[in-house]
């Protein structure tokens, strides 16, 4: 209470000015902070969407690669060789041996379906018992910089290839994958990966 009475003395004249200056500076600071925050939020969002796109790309590619590594090379269909390509691949995998006979797993298919574009994995496709899992929704309709114009735009030897395409060369399968998604402010984020795997069975 002693402190309280001490302060009171002679302070009345400064209050308004003090408040005005304080408020002005505070307003400036607040505005600044808000601006920084907004821009950083934007950057954060962009970073987030890019990161999750990267993650999705890695994960989808790893899943496809691993599925095809275990595939039997004789079962790959349609298995076109470059410059032809397919947007789907049907295969089966060896599951080991039982009672002296090789056990072959169910037929599986990895496919890019359109409207809207999705990459799906199907177990026992084209049967009544079909099981379908969507691996990603962010796939691009065409690969990388490819346009549907009958020309090999990205000069990789394939014409008008889709966002997911397979080419087969002996026991090797080359997988080309482009994912895309909407970023902040209606930008479009795009990522591409290409890899080759060897069928081990």
């Amino acid at each position, binding site marked *: 209470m*002693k*402190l309280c009475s*001490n302060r009171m*003395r*002679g*302070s009345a004249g*400064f209050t308004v*000015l*003090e408040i005005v*200056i*304080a408020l002005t*500076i*505070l307003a400036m*600071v607040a505005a*600044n*902070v808000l601006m*920084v925050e907004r821009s*950083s939020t934007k*950057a*954060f969002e962009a*970073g987030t969407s*890019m*990161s999750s796109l*990267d993650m999705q790309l*890695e994960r989808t*590619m790893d899943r496809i*690669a691993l599925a095809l590594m275990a595939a039997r090379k004789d079962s790959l269909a349609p298995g076109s060789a470059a410059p032809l390509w397919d947007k789907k691949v049907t295969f089966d995998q060896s599951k080991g041996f039982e009672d002296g006979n090789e056990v072959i797993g169910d037929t599986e298919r990895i496919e890019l379906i359109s409207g809207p574009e999705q990459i799906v994995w199907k177990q026992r496709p084209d049967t009544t018992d079909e099981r379908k899992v969507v691996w990603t929704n962010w796939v691009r309709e065409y690969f990388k910089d490819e346009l549907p114009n009958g020309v090999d735009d990205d000069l990789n030897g394939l014409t008008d290839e889709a966002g997911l395409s397979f080419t087969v060369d*002996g*026991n*090797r399968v080359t997988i080309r994958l482009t994912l895309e998604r909407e970023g902040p402010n209606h930008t479009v984020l795009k990522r591409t*990966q290409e*890899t*080759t*795997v*060897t069928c*081990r069975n």
Partner: protein
Amino acid sequence: MTRCEFLLLPPMMSKISSGSMKRLRAPSRAGFSMIELMVVLAILTMGVSMFSSTLVSTARQSQAKREIAIAAEGARRAMELMRSQSCEILFATYNESSADDPGGAGTAPGKHFVVTGLTLRDGDKDGFVGEILFPTVETALREDVVDTVLGMPRDLDGDNQVDNANHAANYVLLPVHVRIQWKGVSGDVSFDLYNQFVKQ
């Protein structure tokens, strides 16, 4: 500074020193808020600058991560290409020498390979970021090479002995090191993948 001290002092201390402060502070009261604001501004600036530096470093880090992902994919691709071929020809196909290429001299891809999306290091003479390494002394595939990461020295031709002969023609097991070296956003980086192939 005084104001600051006052604010930061614990209640007991401020009570004790309040007598002397009264005299000092009374004439310059308008400045207190300014100092206060300066301190606030300083704190805010620090906070914001820290935040923005975090942003920058995060962006750089994610770029570095992306580079590593590209390198890993490139290395896997090289490994899978080797896996698809018969083990007998791997050494001749991917070693430094082009004279022993299985399809005739100069026909094999050799030691180096391209990884698109990565920048060459300064002073990289061969012009490729990727390379495939075997346990060799010059061009000879040797069992007595010391390289713990590849499990060397060790027997490679299945005779249970480690000798100093060239086993390029009769190896049964072939240790492989795929190395990618590039110039990243924050310095030189390298990525390594190791494997062994066996004749069947």
